[in-house]
């Protein structure tokens, strides 16, 4: 009897609670000039972040030079804080893999390895342990992208270093067509999932419906170790005559809430512009979709993810580190979201 009761209790323990993941919260730094801002560095210390993901550059094919070139590489006006390691991130525009031969692939891998090495030194760090490649690869560019990753892995400058890649939701679902990148781990990007260009009331940054659609039945089976990236940003999507016209950087929350300028539609994140607004290049009748992320959104997402992610040690990365965006969330908000994993 006693044995049975011990067994019952043991079984209870086994199923009663799921193993908790250990998460290391940190940020993406996605601006082109690094300044050590007090609030940003303070956030890193509060989170006890050991590393910061820093965008080094974009790489795109330049038809004038007929080669792949770095686009707005980062400049370090200040060194990174001493207690924080750097994880360089390189964004590759998918189109470079549409028409690339193996010589160019090798050259690209070599260029990136050398460039990243130099930029890491400029950030005040002697070395780095992980390089992240960010590319929204597709079925057609897949093979060449993976070949590129293999070249990068073999590069002498990346010996003993981890290479990770970013992973979009559709790449998790369509594993057969997207393939599995030949790297140790991936960063699941939980943002920009909806249809940005479609006119409507949806939030294209974070949309639980899309997450259900793309992750629910697929995430558990994804074979790579996964880190997670969550959004904290906001933006104003402009529509003119119900057609996507762009993202306006000259509209902020203060203007959106200005009753003289905008009228909010009921139960909606759409705002009608009431007058011509030349300062932002907008005309009367334009519609702004104000997309932002609340703590509740992040909590819902993190509950959803923790249900389907394998319990393991992982980085939880907020996109992105910015003094103004940090103001939208209290420390308590962040703590709740982090604890939810």
């Amino acid at each position, binding site marked *: 009897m006693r044995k049975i009761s011990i067994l019952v209790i043991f079984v209870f323990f086994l199923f009663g609670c799921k193993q908790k993941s250990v998460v290391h919260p940190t940020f993406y730094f996605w601006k082109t000039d690094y300044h050590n801002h007090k609030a940003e560095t303070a956030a890193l210390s509060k989170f006890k972040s050991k590393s910061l993901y820093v965008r080094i550059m974009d790489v795109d094919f330049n038809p004038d030079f007929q080669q792949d070139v*770095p686009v707005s590489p980062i400049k370090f006006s200040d060194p990174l804080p001493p207690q924080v390691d750097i994880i360089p991130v390189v964004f590759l525009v998918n189109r470079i893999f549409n028409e690339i031969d193996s010589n160019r692939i090798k050259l690209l891998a070599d*260029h990136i390895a050398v460039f990243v090495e130099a930029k890491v030194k400029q950030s005040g760090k002697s070395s780095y342990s992980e390089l992240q490649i960010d590319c929204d690869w597709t079925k057609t560019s897949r093979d060449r992208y993976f070949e590129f990753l293999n070249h990068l892995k073999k590069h002498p400058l990346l010996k003993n270093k981890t290479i990770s890649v970013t992973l979009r939701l559709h790449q998790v679902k369509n594993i057969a067509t997207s393939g599995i990148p030949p790297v140790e781990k991936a960063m699941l990007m939980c943002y920009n999932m909806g249809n940005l260009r479609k006119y409507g009331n949806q939030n294209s940054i974070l949309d639980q419906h899309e997450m259900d659609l793309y992750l629910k039945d697929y995430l558990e089976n994804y074979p790579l170790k996964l880190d997670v990236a969550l959004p904290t940003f906001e933006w104003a999507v402009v529509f003119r005559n119900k057609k996507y016209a762009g993202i306006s950087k000259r509209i902020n929350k203060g203007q959106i809430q200005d009753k003289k300028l905008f009228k909010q539609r009921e139960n909606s994140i759409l705002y009608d512009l009431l007058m011509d607004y030349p300062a932002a290049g907008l005309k009367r009748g334009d519609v702004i979709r104000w997309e932002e992320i609340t703590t509740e959104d992040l909590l819902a997402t993190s509950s959803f993810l923790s249900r389907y992610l394998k319990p393991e040690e992982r980085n939880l990365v907020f996109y992105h580190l910015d003094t103004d965006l940090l103001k939208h969330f209290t420390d308590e908000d962040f703590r709740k979201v982090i604890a939810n994993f």
Partner: protein
Amino acid sequence: MKIFEKLSLISSIFLITFFGEIAVNIACGGEVDPYDYYISYFHNNVQGDEYTSFAFNQMAYLNSEENTESESEINSREWGKYLDVKPQDVHQIMYEADSAMKAKLQLYDGKISELPDSLQKNTFLQGLNKHKSALKYYIFAKSCEPFANVDFDLWNPKPRDTAGMSLLATEALTITKSEKDAFLKLRYAYQAERMFHYAGQHDDSKNVFEKFIKTDQSNSAVKGWALALYAGSVRRLGNPEESAFLFSKVFASNPERRVQAYKNYYYNSAPVSGALKYAKTDEEKANIWAINGFGNSDFDIESLNKVYQYDPKSQLTGTLLVREVNKLEQALIEANDIAKISFDYYFSYNDRSKSKDSVRNVNLKQLNEIRNFAVKLAAEKK
């Protein structure tokens, strides 16, 4: 081997090579030559060569990227006159030195006897030897050179050494203030302006120009180069219209920088009225209208008229008129099958026949206007 076999072997190898080569030439050869691939009976530079870069060319952005004058030769002439030495000798040392010569010159501190024979005879080096403050400037300018002349390589991760440039700029500025010799003072000021500019300190750069270069009384070409930098700083600080105007001034005053000034004028994307706001004299206005005309590959009689109105004696009028004639050639000469090998050969517009007559009428109307203008020009004999 029989003679017949030998001969047939030789001849077949000959034939294969001969026709193979032709096949390769056809397959890989022949880019469109922008100076030869369309019909023109009217040379695009009959008005003279001063504005040859901006003559009309149906296929190229600029007829030529070369400036009509050479900056290095102008600078050598100025130095030659200043030190009373041969300009060729200046050019040889300043611009033609190979790496071995540069290494020797780097250590040159006025002791001419330590140099190789070939350099000892150079009158520029002899002149510097006699003129210690000029030598000091020369060494200083050389120390700025590696900062200013950087090889353009996007994959070079090294940022520009702005701190180093800023130090040099400050040093140059200090010397400028105390230098008595006007020739050297202007050049030190130019180095200061230039180093501040490349270091991104555009306000400092502008100040140097306004204080030391604008007020300079000489007619040195350096003033024009400095004005180009100043115009660049004005643009960076957010005034594209004034910047466009300033570049139009460089365009007029410094033929060695004309192409650069022309391109920079357009980088500003300021409307012609914006640049005109700053123009005071008729000559300045004429130049802005001329640049405007050079940048227009459509019929443009307005620019032509304006230039003629403001500055009737200028060679600009002739250049613009010839441009219009060349444009008319493009519009009116019908390519026959033999000559039809350019753009039209590959891309023929199917719907052209419908609008052919009205297009022709527009072209003929333009022809008349140009003819009237030319007749007026000839009659007024300004």
